[in-house]
């Protein structure tokens, strides 16, 4: 079985986000880049399938040279092959999905695994678009995956419960927290990954369907207010504020 895992490099959640001078992109200075955590669940699932079912695991990311870091990390965790598709991995979801589809088609993959969304962008768009562009079955926000021959059974989170989806391979499955507990790379894996080659190719695919027009930070939190007076009058004014201003009572 051949599995492709699509990885996205995203800013670390602890990054203090700054808007760049153009007013519509992220200022990349001081940003620490990591593998999107949802993609880590996807990769872990692929590596478990490699261990239990002798799957061959290929990882791909769309981006520039710094994208090699996520690929190197995936190799250290147990991926067999890594490909850097040179292009804009941070932009329009449709362009990303179409670049991945152009890469993946005719390569004989039985399964594509990806995070259900890229941390930070939170669009949840690339996985489903990729499945549609390839004409494959899909299951998203998956917390349990079972494969049997050429079919899959996936349990996915839905509002207030879970839903089981069955389908045939090839398929695109997007991972949700809970699918598994990702491992840490072993020192042996880290050393071995340094000796593996990362292939590079130019991304091909359809042009972007959307573009960022503006990026703004949420307004700063207003300063807190201190109520004066004795306990009874403070309680009275608090009640008034909650009812008339916050409108929660």
């Amino acid at each position, binding site marked *: 079985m051949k599995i492709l895992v699509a990885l996205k490099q995203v800013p670390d959640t602890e990054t203090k986000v700054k808007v760049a001078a153009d007013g519509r992109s992220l200022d990349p200075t001081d940003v620490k880049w990591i593998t999107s955590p949802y993609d880590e669940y996807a990769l872990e699932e692929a590596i478990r399938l490699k261990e239990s079912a002798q799957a061959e695991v290929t990882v791909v990311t769309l981006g520039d040279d710094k994208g090699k870091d996520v690929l190197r990390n995936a190799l250290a965790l147990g991926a067999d092959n890594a490909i850097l598709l040179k292009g804009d991995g941070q932009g329009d979801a449709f362009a990303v999905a179409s670049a991945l589809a152009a890469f993946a088609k005719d390569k004989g993959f039985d399964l594509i695994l990806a995070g259900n969304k890229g941390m930070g962008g939170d669009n949840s768009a690339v996985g489903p678009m990729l499945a549609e562009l390839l004409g494959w079955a899909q299951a998203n926000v998956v917390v349990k995956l079972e494969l049997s021959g050429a079919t899959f059974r996936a349990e996915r989170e839905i509002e207030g419960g879970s839903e089981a989806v069955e389908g045939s391979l090839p398929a695109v499955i997007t991972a949700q927290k809970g699918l598994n507990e990702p491992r840490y*790379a072993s020192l042996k894996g880290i050393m071995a990954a340094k000796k593996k080659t990362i292939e590079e190719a130019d991304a091909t695919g359809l042009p972007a369907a959307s573009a960022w027009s503006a990026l703004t930070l949420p307004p700063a939190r207003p300063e807190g207010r201190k109520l004066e007076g004795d306990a009874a009058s403070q309680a009275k004014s608090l009640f008034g504020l909650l009812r008339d201003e916050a409108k929660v009572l």
Partner: protein
Amino acid sequence: MFPALTEDQLAIQEAAREFATAEIEPGAMARDHSAEFPKAIIGQLGEMGFMGMMVPEVYGGSGVDALSYILALEQISYADASVAVTMSVNNSVACAPIAAFGTEAQKQKYLKPLASGAVLGGFMLTEPDAGSDAAALKCRATKVDGGWKLNGAKAWITNGGVGRYFVTMAITHPELGKKGISAFVLDADQPGVIMSKPEEKMGLRSSKTVMVTLEDAFVADDDMLGQPGDGLKVAFGGLDGGRIGIAAQALGIMQRALDESIQYAKTRHSFGKPIGEHQAIQTYLAEMHAKVEASRLLIYKAAMLKDAGKPCTLEAATAKLFSTESAVWVCDRAVQIFGGYGYSREYVVERLYRDVRVTTVYEGTSEIQRMVIARGLTK
């Protein structure tokens, strides 16, 4: 950052930092309070290859150099020095002597499980009446059919009760004095090896240290490390590595104490400004920083000499003396900077102050290090 690290060394340092931050740090205070041994964490460290870092891959280790080991130990110690000492003992004084002196069969039987983290190991040299003066040990090995029976008492045995294979020194030939001491790999999983309940220690509380009583504990002839009479050679063979390791443990602790102090000095106010703007606190921080940086250079230099296969006894002893004495001072100042809060168990510097104290005592006291240094200078 130290400017001469290779890509591999940086990657190992980062892997250790990431694991320590995510998995070790969060429970460190609770484990200090409960003295609970971090079994799951040690298991994970084993799976990742941190328990036999310098052991060749064919024997289940990671096959990395001494400097990589030091870098990892520093990061783990930064998060929890109890975990670091458990790891250090397994690497430096269980795996290392077996890797250096063991036969192929001993390596297959003992080194593989120790290096891969499947079982924990330790070192039984010290006795109630033989500490720094190791040659004064009294534990007797008596020849029996197929092996030896060990009788005696061993003290301050780290990983006792949680580990299985212990490099153990005992007298095989009493008439030969120091040269009558031999080394064995002892399997603690037998009735003749009696572990006391863990010592109630000031610090490193989630690591386990016990008194061991040996009552006819059996080791086979094949379990002798090296030749008869090689006991002290085996015991002292790993001393340089062990000293560099404990120096790195102290380094991790004092770096943490410094970072915590800087953070606190920026946020705590007195007399209308952050305390970090008061000159008294500034001089403490500057001195602490200088000691941390100087220690780091001494430790890395000793490790790099070891990796180059050059003698490093003088450098290892110097690194151990300076780093551990510095670390005790740095943690003391951290408590001072934190004021009353530094005396509270709610704050990490209180633990650092207790954890660091043993570093000038074990793996060769500061007094022994001074002796080794002076001998090296005047020989």
